[in-house]
């Protein structure tokens, strides 16, 4: 529970506050009026007020991560995601929250007679709205990151296909830097290809990978272990001297995993395992 008068003041003056805020927002975004309809903006602003009144009356502090604020967080997440998709900038999106300060403070100056109480509550309100505004920016950035990641994944799937070298032998040439997320996806693709092509031998070539860190090395090893459980064997090839040193330095235990310096050696080994050989005509 809170002792601030904010929820009561906002609630009592809801209509005027909403109208003043909407007027301000429309002024600031006259160029963007085609992107967000008036009725949608009114609905979003109205819901914001309701959520604000609710959260402030139930919680004492300004910790917007608390459960009392989850309704507001959901609202702002949704709004932020929408604005990001509609092509707004992060600043424009956060301004939804920040622009609320002006009509709110105008109202508070009228409502309070005690200067100290006014100062206290204005400060509390500023703190809250700043945090909420920053939250929308965080979500906005995360949304943008998600889109970029998805695009990267799609590019990745196109650029790192699993290749069938021969009956039962697959090759996965990895190129470029590997991060944890990318490695996981690539590895899942390999395991699925093993089932789809009925291949029991896979060569994972890392010639084109400049660096390998602990996480990536662990993912590689987990993939080899998973392939084994499925009945397929992996050979890791293209381990350059620097990477070999890194692996030892990191203390990663390659125990039992077949490795070859070059892809050609790995292919030869694979053929041998299948009792095959390439003979000159």
């Amino acid at each position, binding site marked *: 529970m809170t002792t601030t008068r904010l929820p009561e003041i906002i609630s009592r003056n809801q209509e005027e506050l909403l109208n003043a805020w909407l007027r301000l927002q429309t002024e600031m975004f006259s160029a963007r009026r085609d992107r967000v309809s008036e009725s949608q903006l009114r609905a979003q602003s109205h819901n914001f007020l309701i959520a604000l009144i609710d959260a402030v009356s139930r919680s004492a502090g300004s910790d917007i991560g608390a459960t009392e604020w989850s309704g507001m967080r959901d609202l702002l997440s949704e709004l932020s995601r929408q604005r990001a998709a509609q092509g707004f900038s992060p600043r424009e999106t956060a301004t939804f929250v920040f622009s609320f300060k002006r009509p709110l403070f105008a109202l508070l100056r009228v409502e309070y007679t005690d200067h100290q109480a006014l100062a206290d509550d204005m400060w509390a309100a500023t703190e809250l709205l700043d945090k909420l505004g920053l939250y929308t920016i965080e979500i906005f950035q995360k949304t943008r990151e998600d889109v970029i990641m998805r695009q990267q994944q799609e590019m990745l799937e196109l650029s790192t296909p699993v290749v069938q070298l021969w009956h039962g032998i697959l090759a996965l040439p990895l190129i470029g830097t590997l991060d944890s997320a990318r490695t996981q996806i690539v590895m899942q693709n390999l395991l*699925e290809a093993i*089932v789809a092509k*009925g291949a*029991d031998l896979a060569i994972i070539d890392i010639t084109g990978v400049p660096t390998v860190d602990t996480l990536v090395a662990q993912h590689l090893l987990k993939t080899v*272990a998973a392939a084994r459980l499925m*009945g397929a*064997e992996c050979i890791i090839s293209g381990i350059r001297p620097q990477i070999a040193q890194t692996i030892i330095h990191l203390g990663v235990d390659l125990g039992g995993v077949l490795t070859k310096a070059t892809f050609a050696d790995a292919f030869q080994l694979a053929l041998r395992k*299948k009792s095959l050989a390439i003979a000159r005509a």
Partner: protein
Amino acid sequence: MTIEKGVEVMDRIPILKMGSFLLVTIQVDMHDQLALALQDDLTERIVRDRATGVLIDISALDIVDSFIGRMLGNIASIARILDAETVVVGMQPSVAITLVELGLSLPGIRTALNIDRGMELLRAANSGVAAGDGFEES
């Protein structure tokens, strides 16, 4: 088959004889009793049919937890004592990834992609020829 608590409770998992091998295809989400019953039944059949190999097809299982893992391990160990090899075939990719994450390595169990490959492995093991492309967990 009986129904208890809305769950189809299969009384026993069928075991097929294929030459000197036994084939088990697990297609239901087993509760613990059923898994233990399978272990018992297989043990009995290995002796009774003088089987030299056991093929366990888990291609229909999308969950293998530590209990089932333990059961598979037990079957392999028991079979070995009775001079029979066990091959587990058809593990799904997401199951394999999860088992690795869980830390289950299924020692002493051979694996193969499918029943055909599994049979090849067993035949090779039986005839004393080292199988080129099948291999064992350690």
